[in-house]
């Protein structure tokens, strides 16, 4: 609860007076992205938050600071489902594959042909009441300004983690990370299964997150 209220304060400061109508803290998702090798070794991970629609790009998970390992726990527990889905769906982007209801966490997966797994956990912020996408969209339509339409599109990503818009945004994000992953893999000094330490790669992933999520 403390984290959620902090989010509301900081983002309302960014957005100004309009935000009081359409509480933007409801729209900010938190993301945890990880790359796993074919033998389940973690190669890369990063946590970030929504940057669209005035988001500050900082992740605010529902767990207290001391329990951030919960993200890893949830994301790794979806590997079983991923390995089943892997042989029924030939696409590289497998969309939303798993949900962890206690934390309202959704997990999307992307498989590279050479077997590396990209997993993205997205978690909506802790809602104070039963407000959901319908209320967010309703209030933005009341505003009817140009600023609110952009926020409405980003709210559809944030408020409904299984909507087609979200799937498309995540797909774009995954494709961009894939491009950079291939560049990493093509380096003669990189062997499959090695941790990706390049700061440039990290910057690229952060930029992709800002661009699409």
């Amino acid at each position, binding site marked *: 609860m403390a984290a959620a209220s902090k989010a509301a304060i900081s983002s309302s400061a960014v957005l100004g007076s309009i935000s009081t109508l359409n509480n933007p803290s409801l729209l900010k998702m938190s993301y945890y992205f990880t790359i796993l090798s074919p033998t389940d070794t973690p190669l890369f991970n990063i946590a970030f938050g929504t940057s669209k629609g005035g988001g500050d790009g900082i992740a605010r998970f529902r767990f207290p600071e001391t329990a951030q390992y919960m993200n890893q726990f949830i994301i790794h527990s979806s590997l079983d489902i991923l390995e089943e889905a892997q042989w029924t769906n030939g696409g590289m982007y497998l969309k939303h594959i798993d949900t962890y209801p206690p934390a309202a966490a959704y997990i999307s997966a992307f498989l*590279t042909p*050479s077997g590396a797994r990209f997993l993205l956990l997205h978690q909506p912020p802790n809602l104070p009441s039963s407000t959901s996408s319908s209320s967010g969209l309703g209030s933005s339509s009341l505003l009817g300004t140009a600023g609110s339409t952009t926020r409405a599109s980003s709210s559809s990503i944030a408020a409904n983690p299984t909507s087609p818009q979200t799937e498309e945004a995540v797909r774009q994000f995954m494709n961009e990370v894939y*491009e950079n*992953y*291939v560049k990493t893999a093509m380096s003669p000094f990189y062997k499959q299964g090695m941790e990706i330490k*390049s700061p440039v790669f990290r910057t*690229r992933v952060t930029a992709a997150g800002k661009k699409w999520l």
Partner: protein
Amino acid sequence: MAAPPRHATMQSISNGGIVPGTDRQQTQQTQAQLSQQSPGLRVPSNRKTIYDRHLNRSRNTELSRASFAFLFGEMVTYAQRRVTGIQDLEKRLNEQGYPLGLRLLDLLFYRSTSTSSSALSSSSTSSSPPNRPLRIITLLHLIHGPLWRLLFGRAADALEHSVSPDTPNEYMITDNDPMVNTYISAPRDMSMLNCAAYVAGIIEGVCDGCGFETKVSAHNQPTELWPSRTVFLVRFGDPVMEREKVLERAGVK
């Protein structure tokens, strides 16, 4: 107050100390400066890292065959210096090809998604990105067609399934004139050797990357017309064959 340490350094110099104290301090300082500028990363002078280069840039460029022949000749020599026999040599060549196969797989898919042409998909479903191969046949078609074209600029010459009922897990990919063997003539006492074991390693890497456990070997099968005809024998592991049956029953293509 500063006298005793200076004296100590003087002594260490006179005793044949390797690095004088002042010099050591300087090197430490310069190292610290360097690490501040670029923590663990060397950026080229034009500020372009590998992440700034486009993966499709060299898509249609061709490499010099002469330099490839020279490089490959050196690779064979390098491998031969450390082996006991022909089998060992072929194993080493195979191991050199394996990581290349893993890389090519990602590059192949990247290039075919970004251009979204029908270069990769044998079923020529353009616009949509190609699928990962789930069944043996799709995988072998991927190797026979797109992979061979990426490597050698043409498709392989034949793709066959073993006719023997004892070995349903064996498939054969034939290349009538493998490019890697063009400039290699094995001595008489090594007539069994086929340096295309390197290509076999690449195939193995591709199969393994896709999740198909495989052993691939290269065999000489000369004909009148094609003296360096090579057959790549692809042997899938038992778990793969079991999964293949399950997937067939489930109707996965």
